[in-house]
């Protein structure tokens, strides 16, 4: 598997969350995602970008295109240097909210992508990495 150039976007305002949605949409279109697949990954990115802004105090997104023999995917890495998450399992559970959504942000985003990883600890910031593939490319 080879990786293409990385695009980095700042996440410091809700206007930039909109910019994240637009950039992820463009990356998904370029990788050959269907409309439903685009909508899923853009929705996941919107949730994760908001977490970066609201809980991480802002941060950035790196978008990487992944090439496999059977197709292209995209990897999204959201990084912040915020307070970190002490209890990841609770943060991922449905209904957990700090008041800015319906408590489905992190867990909901995880259900919309094929791969989901979170690296966090109190005082160390949070990095969430997700990978999405169009149908047929996953596992190829």
């Amino acid at each position, binding site marked *: 598997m080879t990786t293409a150039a990385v695009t980095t976007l700042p996440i410091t305002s809700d206007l930039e969350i909109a910019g994240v*949605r637009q950039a992820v949409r463009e990356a998904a279109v370029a990788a050959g995602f269907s409309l439903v697949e685009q909508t899923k990954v853009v929705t996941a990115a*919107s949730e994760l970008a908001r977490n970066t802004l609201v809980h991480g105090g802002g941060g950035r997104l790196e978008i990487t295109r992944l090439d496999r023999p059977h197709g292209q995917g995209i990897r999204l890495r959201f990084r912040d240097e915020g307070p970190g998450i002490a209890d990841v399992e609770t943060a991922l559970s449905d209904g957990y909210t700090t008041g800015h959504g319906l408590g489905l942000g992190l867990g909901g985003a995880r259900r919309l992508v094929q791969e989901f990883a979170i690296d966090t600890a109190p005082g160390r910031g949070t990095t969430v990495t997700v990978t999405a593939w169009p149908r047929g490319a996953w596992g190829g």
Partner: protein
Amino acid sequence: MNAATGMRRVSVHRLGEVLLASIQQELTDSIAVALRQDLTEMAAAGTRGVIIDISQVEIVDSFLARVLAEIAAATRILAGRTVVCGMRPPVAITMVEMGLGLPGLHTARSLEDALALVEAGEVGR
């Protein structure tokens, strides 16, 4: 238009006793919150229902779902229905997979169906 951010509020139209908001722009969180404020204030002046056309909305995430539910809750207290119309199929599919619902909201395929639902709400009380 907000000069500081370049953002445009969602315009709300009053059709008799029905409020209609048609979302035509990229919906940032602050524009969504401003829409909730505008609709709630206008509904307080008297309304039978609120219709929100989301046919141009490309994603509904948990934040927007919450704002829509809050609009419905405020409208219900004022004895009106809130109907969301025109949701794109990929948006609906994504919401189901996430486990996101729209509590307190009615949904309709078209503006015409939405108006009929508001009327039905009036008859039903």
